[in-house]
């Protein structure tokens, strides 16, 4: 391996970790999608079968997993757009680090209210009404 990682995006540092996270979130979302098409296919079995399985989506623990899924998809989408910008935009490589901070920033700003709205019902059910 070369010793001077000048100008590479992938050898250690944020460039590599953002890529590792892109890979892990991609795999996770892909496996969710397999299961998700199977659960949706239950609409062809009977309304009851579909409703019983969808009821699990509404339980507290699965609700928390959904927040994780949305967080994973959101990161993958934002960082994917960043990768695309690095590849196609002439100044992309120069701004790739700033764009990574933008990805993190947008992710936090969307996930804060997103988590609130996704979890509101569960929190109310578990701990009583929220203010």
């Amino acid at each position, binding site marked *: 391996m070369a010793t001077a990682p000048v100008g590479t995006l992938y050898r250690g540092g944020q460039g590599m970790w953002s890529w590792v996270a892109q890979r892990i979130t991609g795999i996770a979302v892909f496996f969710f999608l397999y299961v998700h098409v199977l659960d949706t296919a239950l609409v*062809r079995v009977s309304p009851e079968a579909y409703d019983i399985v969808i009821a699990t989506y509404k339980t507290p623990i699965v609700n928390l997993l959904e927040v994780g899924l*949305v967080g994973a998809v959101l990161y993958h989408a934002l960082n994917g757009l960043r990768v695309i910008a690095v590849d196609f935009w002439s100044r992309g490589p120069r701004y790739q680090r700033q764009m990574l901070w933008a990805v993190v920033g947008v992710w936090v700003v969307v996930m804060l209210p997103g988590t609130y709205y996704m979890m509101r019902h569960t929190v109310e059910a578990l701990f009583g009404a929220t203010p």
Partner: protein
Amino acid sequence: MSLADRSLALSTGSRNRQRSNFELYAWLFMRVSGVVLVFLVLGHLFIMNILDGGVQRINFAFVAGRWASPFWQVWDLAMLWLAMLHGTNGLRTIINDYAERNQTRFWLKMLLYVSSAFIILLGTLVIFTFDPTIG
């Protein structure tokens, strides 16, 4: 890597690759499908998890209401095909990266392609044959 670097790396690089542009098209497809999926998947997640009541309101009647409209049928169909092809191609890359033995690589990819084809066909069938009066 830029598009030009990419085709350069592919034409001069790696062992005994045939003169084929498949990898270049696959690379391009990941980017084009990615841009479209941003709207389809993030829109889907927003509707399903945040909009009026989120996941708590989903049931058979809800799906029946949505699939009564061709707009959402086309939306879901496009999302199904693009996400599955994008994800399958992504996993193909990952298998190529980590599975060292030729045999292992071959069988893992066969498993991937067969299961992905099954899911794409099943999902397509479900959208086209949906019957709101079933049961």
